[in-house]
């Protein structure tokens, strides 16, 4: 188990402030956040590259804060792979084994085994510059994995790859992790990876962790407006909430809707477009909210269509292409948007949060 206790570090313009995280064995933990949030600095500090200003890092209860990187048994793969250009693929993979003075024969066996596992056996005698991005990625993974690290740190390892290679390597990473039980901590920008790979995610902003949790939980219940915006949740509505019975009555853009929440005052409500039903006539159902509005934009996205409505505030819904043509939706058409009070997630709008999305 990896425990980070109120870790702080400042490195030029990047900093990490008072971060605490606990990552159990074998977990696939993903850290997401915008550029400059301090994600890489955090990873490098876990690896032991930078000494923290304060706080501790514990691995299986043992304080490793002051240990040299080589004594931590933590592997690291960077975005640009950082393969040593003056060494062949085989020499790159064997690099760590050579540092440990593993017998030459055993080094060769281990390199061959990693080559097979990652499908790069045919590349072993080549130099890194001659490899494609996906191949370099595998070599970098092999170089780290061959030491059987307790924890593997991945710094946006997929961002330089095309989406198909990314998907394939993601799957392989998942398999490797299951086979070896390695704990993986990864940084990413890609939301697909978050859903398919992560056991838990952390959202970072300005050097602090904003929210930690299972991906579905974080997506359904973002803790802050920033998290909601960063996760690209379809509808982020600012308004004022007051108590009405067991529900929150939210006023926004001259319109009123209800949410299952007890938060009052200035709030931000999030609503996934998938939870909005569109109809031409008022839709009678158990759903608490049914707002009239006009269609302002129809955007086809793959097999679905994104409908943007004006119901007093902009509201996005998703329809299949079929239902969109069945309903004969057109721009400026009158429709009704129906959603459950329980589908609306309410976040208190912190006064200091910048209103940069209006």
């Amino acid at each position, binding site marked *: 188990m990896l425990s980070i206790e109120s870790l702080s570090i400042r490195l030029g313009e990047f900093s990490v402030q008072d971060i605490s995280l606990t990552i159990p064995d074998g977990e696939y933990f993903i850290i997401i956040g915008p550029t400059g949030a301090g994600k890489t600095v955090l990873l490098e500090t876990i*690896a032991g*590259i930078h000494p923290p200003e304060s706080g501790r890092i514990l691995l299986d209860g043992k304080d490793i804060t002051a240990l*040299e*990187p*080589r004594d931590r048994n933590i592997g690291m793969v960077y975005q640009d792979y*950082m393969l040593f*250009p*003056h060494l062949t693929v085989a020499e790159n993979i064997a*690099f760590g084994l050579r540092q440990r003075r593993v017998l030459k024969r055993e080094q060769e066996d281990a390199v061959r085994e990693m080559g097979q596992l990652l499908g790069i056996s045919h590349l072993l005698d080549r130099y890194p510059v001659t490899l494609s991005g996906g191949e370099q990625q595998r070599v970098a993974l092999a170089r780290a994995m061959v030491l059987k690290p307790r924890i593997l740190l991945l710094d946006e390892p997929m961002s330089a790859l095309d989406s198909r290679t990314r998907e394939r390597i993601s799957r392989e990473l998942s398999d490797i992790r299951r086979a070896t039980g390695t704990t993986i901590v990864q940084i990413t920008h890609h939301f697909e990876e978050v859903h398919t790979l992560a056991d838990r995610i952390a959202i970072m902003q300005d050097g602090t962790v904003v929210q930690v949790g299972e991906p579905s939980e974080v997506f359904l219940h973002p803790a802050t407006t920033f998290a909601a915006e960063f996760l690209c949740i379809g509808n982020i509505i600012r308004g004022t909430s007051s108590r009405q019975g067991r529900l929150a009555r939210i006023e926004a853009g001259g319109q009123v809707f209800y949410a299952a929440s007890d938060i009052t005052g200035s709030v931000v409500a999030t609503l996934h477009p998938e939870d909005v039903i569109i109809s031409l006539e008022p839709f009678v159902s158990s759903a608490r909210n049914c707002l009239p509005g006009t269609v302002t934009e129809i955007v086809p996205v793959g097999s679905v269509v994104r409908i943007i409505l004006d119901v007093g505030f902009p509201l996005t819904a998703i329809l299949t292409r079929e239902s969109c043509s069945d309903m004969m939706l057109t721009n400026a058409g009158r429709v009704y948007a129906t959603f459950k009070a329980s589908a609306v997630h309410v976040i208190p709008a912190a006064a200091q949060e910048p209103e940069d999305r209006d």
Partner: protein
Amino acid sequence: MRKVSLAITVLLFLAISVTLLGLVLYSPLPVLAASMANPEIQFAIVLSIVTGIASTVICIAVAIPVAYALVRYSFPGKRMATLVLTLPLTLPPLVAGIALLLFFGTTPWGKALESAGFAVIFTPLGIVVAQVFVNLPYMVRIMRSAFASINPRFEHVAKTLGCTESGAFFQVTLPMARHGLLAGTVVTWSKAMGEFGAVLMLAGATTMRTETLPIALYLNISTGDVDLAVAAATILILISLAALCCVEYLDRDVNVF
């Protein structure tokens, strides 16, 4: 514009090659061969090569850690240090030479060195000192740009793979900087072979004692012995040409001068 600039380029090319070829072809071959066999020229060749190698080795040994520190570490006065380290580049070698002469001749530590057996003034050791002083900034600059082009993350990865800090440097950073190192070595050595002003000031121009190739050229032209001067000059041209070819071959990206 195209015609004019091309014409000027051709003219410049002709001017340089004709001038240098004229020098090389000045003496008939037998005379040149005889001059090369002259003991004074032979002494100058050997002395130049030996002092050149010695000063280059010292430059490498000092420049590598200095350049690395300038690139990787931040410390108070770094800008000032960089400036001072680069100053000898633009300083006329004669000025460097006289500064060295005063340092070793008049200061207590200079005298202490001399009494300890390291006599620098008007000795072959002085040649090495003068060459190191003048050439070190070149070596530092070349190594600095070589190290600066290497992402520190290579070292980070090496450390997570089991390297100590120095292990990462010697197994990853230095091999990755090898083109810069080779180019720097060649340039430093060829500049050392041709160093005149600083050597003249500090080591003097004593025939058959501190007589490097440029000094031999100077001494012989002063006494009217043109053949010997031309022999020395011819060797210096060949060395420059070889060095330039070497650098071009090693790495086109290293901006040496």
